[in-house]
Structure formats: C-alpha cells, structure tokens
C-alpha cells in the first residue's frame, strides 16, 4: 500500500449522504461501504487503495463473506440499499473496525514472512487477506512476541494447502496405476448412471428474462427462484442433441462424451471444457496457487470431479447450471443478430462488446484487410462460444472453492467474463502489433 510519500495518499472525506438521499431514498451499496470504511482511518491502509477506499479484493474476500455476509443477510445485498439496511451495513463494518485494523497489521507481517521464506508465486492479497482476518479474529492485533512465528506458520500452511501443492498430490494419485484404474471404473460408472434431465418449461423463460433484465439495475436478480425451479438442469437436456454443446463451444465433439481420467495438462493447450480430462479440469482450476477452502484431500477432489463430469452442464451445483443457462441466453447479445426480447443484460453486454474498435472492424471489413490476425478474428466471430467457455471455467472454479454466485453478483459475473474476454483479445492484439506486419498483410 502507498505510504505517505510525495506521490500523495490521503484519506478522502466520505461521500456525502446527499448523493443518495437527494432523489430516492435508496443508497448505493458501494457508497455505504465506502462511508463506513472511511471511518476506520489509516489503520486499514494496507487493505485500501490510494484514495483510502477498500480494495476490490478487500470487499470480495473479507468484507462481503466475513463481515457483511449478504448470504445470511439478503437485505444487505444488491446495488442499492434502503437507508435502514445501509445503516446496518455500515454498523457491521464499523463494529468490525478493530478486527479490520488488526487484519491490515497481520497482512504486513505475513508479507514479511513470505519474503523471508522466499515465496514469490501468487498474489499476496488474494492468498492472505482471508487468513489475516481469521488471525485478527482469533488472535486480535499481532503480539510482537508471537506474531512472527504465527505469520510464518500461516504462510507455510497456505503454501502447502494452496492449489499447486494440492495439484501435486492429485498428480501423484492419477499416476498410481492401481488408483487410476479404480478412478477410471468410477468414471465409467458415473457416466453409465447419467439420466437425462427433464426439458425446460415455458415458465422458465420468464424467470430467465426477469433475472437478466434485473442485471445492471437497482433490483437484485432472483436466482433462488431459478435454482428452485431447476431451470439450469432442465436446459442441459438440450445439450444431448447432436451438435448442441458444440454450438455453444463447450466441446469439439458431436455430443458430450465421457472424458478421460488424464494424468497431465498444459495451460497452453487445454481442450474445450467438456473435452478436458478429469485431471485437466482440476489443473485448470487449481494451478496458479489460489487457495482452496478448508482441509481438502486430493482423493476427494478427484472423486467429486468424476461425479461432476457426469452431471448436467458437467457441473455439480444447480446455481452453476443456472448461470450457464443465463450465460447462454445473455451471450446471444454478442452475435450480430437482432434480439427479439433484449434484456438489460443483453443491451449492456452488446454495448461493451461493440465498443471495441477491433470487433467492429472484424465484422465490417473483409477478412484479408481487417488487419486483425486470423486467430483473434476467429475468436471475434465465435465470441459467444469463447464467452461460455470462460464462464464455465469460472463457475467450475467457484464450485471447487465452494463459493456460489449470489444474485447480486450475477451481473458482475456475466459482465466480468466478457471484460476478461475483451482484455485478453486486446492484449493479444497489442502483442501482435509490430510483429506480423508481413504475415498479416
């Protein structure tokens, strides 16, 4: 975090209540969070950006799941809150003030321990924020007599239970021929037991429309209604039709087939989601070292993943399947076709996509003069498929980390996946500039 340097870091005055109160009574949730945060002072600088606002990771990893807890307190979710809910949310943050200040202190000490242990992989905020809050809750502020040892233990444990070391144990398991044979039998049995889901009903379409139309508005999309109606599983029945899953970019095959168990993987050449081996699926989600919740065993991960491959959408949880269904519908906005009943999500996604100059160029100009290299051109034309692949990967990762998407996170997820597709393509274009002048002409 920025220290007090001449570059300047000042705590800014909290947003004034008049912003929200002038018109309607509703308060943007973010405003309430910032307002409460600004009362915590410089003690939380390590969890704040250069303006003294909480970092996105502070909100995602600490404030939301551990302090505000919108799953248990649904009235504290959403883009905007009633004044009473805003007061309650602010009280939850200020009540946790001491713990948050201690969290910031623990973060500094864990970073020092990390340097001492010469650990360099991963993002420390991502890896340590939650643990620091736990330490703050159990130990309070760091005690100079014991803090260093506690921090060293925590950093070492996180390194050992992180995705990379879990992946190493999974690799060992699948390379053991006896274990691999058993896992293969389990896989065959899971696929033999697959049952087709019932098809969607007409009422489902209205629920989908309502959820997507609530995106990017003050309203919270009602994911629970979609989950209760099992619309995600129902929609998966269509994937068994020839070419259906391929059309969505989820497989290169006619229809989804039982995956291999697999024993190796490379980040650069991962097949489409449904064509990935069990090992590749876990590898894609765990490599990179993001921590996994709790005490997870390699054997359980493999067993769960095998079962998951045989379920609807090859995902285990209904909320993930609902999001896939919503993504399939919203993703139509990325194709250059007229939409019959565009929702707010469709309009916003289309807006984001069509603002990109290279996208407009690929669509309007003949391939040979668009200037956009062929692989990126292909990805622009097949953006809906790429979008759904990335969404599937994200949802799969959330299942592994037991962090389901809340209704008020739906839009952030649908929009965030497209942002990540765009950022990736922009980066590839930037890298290509100046390098392929002859080839691209």
């Amino acid at each position, binding site marked *: 975090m920025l220290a007090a340097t001449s570059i300047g870091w000042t705590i800014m*005055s909290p947003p004034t209540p008049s912003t929200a109160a002038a*018109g309607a009574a509703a308060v943007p949730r973010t405003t309430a969070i910032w307002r409460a945060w600004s009362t915590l002072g410089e003690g939380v600088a390590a969890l704040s*950006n*250069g*303006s003294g606002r909480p970092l996105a990771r502070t909100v995602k990893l600490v404030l939301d799941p551990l302090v505000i807890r919108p799953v248990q307190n649904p009235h504290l979710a959403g883009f905007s809150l009633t004044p009473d809910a805003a007061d309650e949310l602010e009280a939850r943050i200020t009540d946790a003030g001491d713990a948050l200040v201690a969290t910031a202190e623990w973060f500094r000490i864990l970073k020092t321990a990390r340097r001492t242990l010469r650990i360099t992989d991963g993002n420390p905020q991502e890896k340590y924020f939650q643990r620091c809050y736990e330490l703050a809750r159990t130990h309070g502020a760091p005690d100079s007599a014991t803090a260093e040892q506690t921090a060293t233990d925590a950093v070492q444990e996180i390194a050992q239970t992180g995705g990379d070391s879990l992946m190493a144990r999974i690799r060992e398991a699948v390379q053991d021929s006896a274990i691999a044979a058993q896992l293969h039998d389990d896989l065959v049995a899971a696929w033999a037991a697959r049952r087709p889901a019932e098809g969607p009903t007409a009422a489902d379409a209205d629920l989908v429309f309502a959820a997507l139309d609530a995106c990017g508005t003050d309203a919270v999309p009602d994911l629970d209604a979609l989950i209760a109606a099992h619309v995600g599983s129902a929609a998966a029945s269509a994937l068994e039709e020839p070419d259906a899953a391929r059309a969505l970019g989820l497989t290169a095959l006619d229809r989804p087939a039982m995956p291999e168990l697999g024993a190796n993987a490379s980040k650069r050449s991962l097949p489409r989601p449904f064509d990935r081996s069990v090992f590749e699926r876990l590898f894609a989600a765990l490599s990179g070292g993001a921590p996994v919740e709790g005490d997870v065993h390699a054997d359980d991960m493999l067993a769960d993943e095998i079962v998951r491959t045989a379920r609807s959408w090859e995902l285990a949880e209904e909320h993930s399947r609902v999001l896939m269904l919503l993504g399939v519908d919203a993703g139509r906005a990325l194709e250059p076709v007229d939409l019959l009943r565009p929702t707010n999500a469709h309009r916003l996604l289309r807006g984001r996509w069509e603002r990109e100059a290279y996208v407009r160029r690929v669509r309007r100009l003949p391939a040979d003069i668009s200037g956009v290299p062929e692989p990126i051109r292909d990805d622009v034309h097949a953006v809906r498929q790429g979008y759904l692949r990335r969404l599937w990967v994200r949802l799969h990762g959330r299942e592994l980390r037991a962090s389901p998407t809340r209704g008020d996170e739906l839009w952030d997820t649908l929009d965030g996946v497209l*942002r990540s597709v765009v950022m990736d393509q922009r980066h590839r274009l930037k890298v*290509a*500039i*100046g390098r392929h002048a002859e080839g691209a002409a």
Partner: protein
Amino acid sequence: MSLWITIADGRASLARAAPAVERAPLRTALIEARGALLSWDAASDDRFPDAVIHSPVEALPWLAEIYGDEIATAVRAADERTIPLPQDAESVDAAHRLAALSWASHWWPAGVYTPPLDGAVLAAETAVAADVVAHLLDDEDAVELALRDAVDAPSALAAVPPRLRDDAAALVDALADLADDHGIELHPAMIARPEDWALAAGAHTPHGDGVEIGHGSAPVRWADVPPQTVAADSDAQWSLRHVDGVPHLHVSVAAVPGATGDLLARFGPEALDIDVPLHADGIAFAGATQVAASVALLPLDERTLWVRDPILAPVPGPAEAEDARDAVREYAVRRLDDPSATLAERAAGE
C-alpha cells in the same frame, strides 16, 4: 440507456443522445471507468471530463467524486439539464492524471524535436495513479497490469537527472509497495545507463544505388503506427531508382530512437499490390523492393504512400488534421518542463 455529459464553459450538459462533435482520438485522454467512459481534451488543461455513461447504476457510486453531488443526482434521475461544475471534486484530478498517462502512452508525439518517453516509467506512474482511483476503474486488474509493464522502471528511475531524483525516489517507493502487495517482482535498478536520447532521429532520405527517376513524401497517420515508433514530426519518403535497368522502390521514415518492430508501406493504388516491408534500423524504418517498370509511369496523383501497421490500420485514410497534430506537439513540448507533468515527461525533457 446511455447518458452523455459534455463540459463547456464551466458547465456540464446532460443528454440522452451523443454530442454531434467527437474529439480527434489523438487529443483524447481516456479512462474506462465502471459503467462509463471519461474523456478529456489531452491538449488542454480542462479539469473536468466529458463522459458517456453506459450503466448509471454502476457509475453512481463514484460519479459525485468526479462531478460533485448535483450532477450525480441529475444522472441518477436521467435529467437532461445543464449544471454548473463544482468548485472541486475529490477524485477528478487523480482520474485526470491517470488519463493523461494513458494518453501519453498511446499518443506521445516523439520525433525529431520531441524526445520519447520511457515506457517503464510511464507504466510505473500508471500503476500508482491507477491505484488511487482503482475503485472507479472498469478493469479490476488495472494496477496489476501496469505493474507488469513497470518491472524495469527502477533502472530507468535511477538514471533520471539530479533535479528529478526526489520525485523518482518517491515513485520507486510507491511502486515497490504496490509490487509487494501484488506479488510482482521488480527488476532491481542497474547502474545508470547512458541515455541515448541525444541521438535524436534526423530527417532520413532513402538512398540507394542507381539513378533516381522519381521521389516524394507523404505524412504518416499517427493512428496507423504504434506509439513512439515513427517520428511524429517527419513525413515518409519514397524514391524510385533504376538499378541496372530495373526499377526499385525505396521507402523510409524517421524512427523514434529505440523503436523496434516492422511496418508496411503501400505505394500507389491497392491494385498494384506494392507493399514494402519496413524494418527499424535505429534511425529509420526503411525497406526497398523491386517493382514493375510501369510504376515509373504512374501519374503523380497515384504516387501515394501509406505507412502503417496492418493491425492498426486496415484501410488508408488521410493523416490527422495538421492543427490537431500541432496542438498535440505544442502541448507535448510544454509538458517537458511543466512541474505538474508526469515524471516520464519531465525526465524526457532533460
């Protein structure tokens, strides 16, 4: 429904339709914010940005920080009104600073008379500036992305002139803190390297063997080439020469010192299919190719030259208006010794 904010004469006008006049890209400084795009005239000192707000709900939490409460409230109500700008707004200067850095990394008119900027220093300043307004940026990874481009900044910052050393040291500290938070390893500063900016590019005329049978020049559209490659104050030159009776076309354009990469130059109408690959040789982007004898007979108005990176420029078009280019070049020269300019700009001015 999108909303537009246009700033003029100390007032902000809200509208539900896009303004008729768009600013030239080369003098536009941009920020992609949550739910909105903010844009400043890069060549002016205007403090408040124009905006197009794609998603008011997402923009609302931070709008008052840029425009003050009254305008934010009008956006919330989608009121098409004209409202005086506030005296102050807490994040507008920080946002402007980030936009200016982004403009400099895309459009800085390095050339014979304007020194280039150090990319790593720009990235370091961008990381620090992005951190200040991270809460209103569309890309949650903006700080981390900039940090990845800034890993070589410590060396460049160790080489700044004495006058700027305090600022450079403060930037190194801030950068190191950010890098530490994000788990990004900076490359330690190497012994100060001799800067070769004194060897500014000179006008470079293509030459070669044989007898010249024609020559000419053409401006290069800035948007058609990557930033800090072609000297922004030089035209591209071509020369048609007979070598042993065979016509050869030579093309050259002055390069910004340190520029690398390849460009393409098309000569004449597209149907002739004459595209000359240009390679950077430290002084110029230059290349030559053998052409058909008929090329020598092209009428004058078809002796066109179009230098570009094909990824940036699929179709030929006129170069940017000279007055816009002049404004940007003059602005850049002022920035070199403006104490409020970025460190990259001030360091280049030494």
